[in-house]
């Protein structure tokens, strides 16, 4: 899969990663999980954050998804901790 996706981080995850958004090249990866693994291989901070404790939720184009979700050029992927509204 070619193209790029926009990756967003929220709340505690955003603070630990140290940024709220970045544009990531897909470079042939097909899923959220594959994209994340490829990013972790190239970014020690990201690898440390995602290997740490705590559940990570994911949304693709503002809809809750999982790490198997397919990615397409232009998608928006968000990673965040479990939600604590109300």
């Amino acid at each position: 899969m070619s193209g790029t996706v926009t990756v967003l981080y929220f709340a505690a995850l955003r603070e630990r990663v140290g940024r709220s958004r970045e544009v990531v090249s897909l470079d042939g990866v097909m899923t959220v999980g594959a994209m994340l693994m490829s990013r972790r291989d190239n970014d020690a901070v990201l690898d440390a954050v995602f290997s740490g404790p705590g559940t990570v939720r994911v949304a693709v184009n503002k809809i809750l998804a999982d790490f198997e979700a397919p990615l397409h050029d232009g998608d928006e992927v968000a990673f965040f901790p479990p939600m604590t509204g109300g």
Partner: protein
Amino acid sequence: MAGLHSEAEASLRVLVQESPFDVGTEMACLLAGSIHIGGLGSFLGVVRGGNGLVALSLEHYPGMSEQMLTKLASEAIRRFALCGCTIIHRFGRLLVGEPVVLVLAAAPHRADALDATRFLIDRLKTGAPFWKSEEFSDGRCRWIESRVEDEEAAAGW
């Protein structure tokens, strides 16, 4: 009475905002929507103090938060045959005692209005992309973690 109101007829008001809201105005607005309303359930969530807490900072995912709350409101309207419902969720820095969230559910009869109110607030706590950070008087800040009880309350519906 199930089926009395179609989802299209029911009024649905969802707002995600930094500014305060007026509960009386919101109730009047919802009541004006249908002559079939016999009762209105309400829940007002406020910032609870104690242990040196001075404020909560709420972060949300713009676009997705409105979308998830609207989906939740639609589900409540279908499930409890509501005449209408209102959800207002604030974000930003809120001091102890300030309102955070308002849930209103209007139905012909009280059981549906009250059940829907509880359904909405239970589901909203873990099902809409908001995150709270606690700010204490000594300057410490800490992200609130999701609670098992909240997950169970949401799953119980």
